């Protein structure tokens, strides 16, 4: 219950992806390897279903695939920095920063508060920029852990 939202092994600093599905999959594999997702294929299907409803590309080069899923054990964030960019359907071009948010299906509200706080931080340009500037995985994880505090 006290697992942090993100750790350094959930960050991919030089992600090379053919498309958004591929980028998402690589991040899912990180979550699965860390034991935060029990069934990578199942969770991937849930994320695809969400993505199909409405593209999650955000202004400022952000891709934000996410889902609530029974295959998620603990609320988690995986981050991929994609220098080459990958299209997430945002009007202003490809995403260079991809956040994969994984929420458990049956999470209680205290659990979900942390994800709400994360979503609120993502709106801030300064937060996104600090992640883009971060030199390595450990720094990305540190920034998220420091900045994302439930209201």
């Amino acid at each position: 219950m006290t697992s942090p939202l993100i750790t350094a092994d959930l960050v991919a600093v030089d992600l090379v992806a053919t498309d958004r599905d591929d980028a998402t999959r690589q991040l899912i594999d990180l979550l699965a390897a860390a034991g935060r997702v029990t069934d990578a294929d199942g969770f991937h299907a849930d994320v695809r279903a969400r993505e199909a409803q409405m593209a999650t590309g955000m202004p400022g080069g952000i891709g934000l695939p996410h889902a609530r899923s029974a295959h998620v054990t603990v609320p988690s964030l995986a981050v991929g920095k994609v220098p080459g960019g990958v299209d997430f359907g945002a009007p202003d071009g490809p995403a260079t920063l991809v956040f994969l948010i994984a929420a458990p299906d049956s999470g209680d509200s205290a659990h979900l508060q942390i994800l709400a706080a994360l979503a609120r931080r993502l709106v801030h340009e300064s937060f996104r920029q600090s992640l883009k500037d971060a030199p390595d995985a450990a720094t990305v994880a540190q920034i998220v852990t420091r900045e994302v505090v439930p209201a």
Partner: protein
Amino acid sequence: MKLVAVTSCPTGIAHTYMAAEALEQAGRAAGHEVAVETQGAAGSMPLDPRVIAEADGVIYAADLEVKDKDRFVGKPFVDVGVKKAVHDAPGVIAAAVAAVGSGVVAPAAGPAAAPVTKVDANAGVGTRVRQWLMTGVSYMIPFVAAGGILIALSFMLAQLAWGDEGVVLVTEVPVDDLMTSFNVASLQDWAVLLFRTGGVAFAFLVPVLSGFIAYAIADRPGLVPGFVGGSVSMLVGAGFLGGLVTGFLAGFVALWISRWKVPKGVRGVMPVVVIPLLSSFVVGLVMFVIIGRPIASLMDGLSSWLNGLSGNNLVLLGLLLGAMMGFDLGGPINKVAYTFAVTGLATEGLDADATQYKIMAAVMAAGMVAPLAMALATVVRKKLFTHAERENGKAAWLLGASFISEGAIPFAAADPWRVIVSSVVGSSVTGGLVMAFGCTLRAPHGGIWVLPLISNPLGFILAIAVGVVVMAAIVIALKSAKPNPLVEAEQAADEQALVGQAA
């Protein structure tokens, strides 16, 4: 400018909150106050009603149905969807400001019957209890109106179709006839159809009341035990007062069970199986075993006591029967008085002015008082009642005139002791007066539609009028003495809306 916004998205974990943050930021940047309610997966913290009342306009950045949208009725709004708020919050704020300027007002689709599902968690106990009650009442009112008016129409038609005894005959046609031999050209068949349909709608009154009180307390898990409890309350003859008990009982039991810490594997089936199952069982147990028996023996006791009384002072008996009719409006005590009167009608070889006929007249007149008096009160002192109650008041005229006491239940359920105290006094006065005037009645129901079957109809109507005025005066006095915070909040919102429209 002050704005309120509601955000939501399909998953409820990302866009809901990003939109909220973006709107708050963009609002601040443009010099406006923006308060956002995030209806997301983490549960939503409802906006303070005062903040809503003060808001100039509303932003819906919601991809899901906005919960409790009726809170925002009468305010200018923009409806943009969540994505637009995330991508272009400043544009959305500008659009909202423009909407306030041009005064595009949220449709007042139903401040009237709009269910008050909002319960402010920070309010005091008394206010919350009122809000729970009002939630149940506001969902019940359409059933009262639909069922009651159907039955009243059926009585009118029946008088046309059969003549004087129509209201009696219409109730005696078996349901099967309706399905096997309905004749479009037969006025009688139409009357039966309306009567039966209205009766079915009425069967929902107490379950809906109970179910939505429980819903207000426990949210969705409260619905099943609440409805079941309300139905059981009808079965054991506990009426709407029993329904109030089951509503609260079901709500708190469901709330309690839903807070259990359970193993992960069980969590998924809690809302669908475990909570409804256990809470319904508890409510059924309590109602059948613990509450059912005392009610049954109370009714038996009252009945035999009444039977022992008859033949003495008729005016006194009229006062007593009237008070009983007014007490619980279809509940056990009302039922004892009514059954006492109807059983008397069945006595063989009665004279035209037999005591039994007088008792029936007194009981029916008394049963008409409460809905009529509440209808009168909502007209005379509008400000003491919520929108929903005022709407119900309109239907209550017809229901009262047709001897459908249920028309007063929404008022009594929302504010039991003030309404019941005044109803007992007013109905009792009417019961006594009918006896004093020596009116008689040969039909068990029908209200003013059976006026031809009443001897001294003028006296009958005068007795009702006096009781109605007495009850309305008492209920107005009692309600004025202690204003209802819910009604005041509604009025503050109304005034705000008017000011907003003028500007």
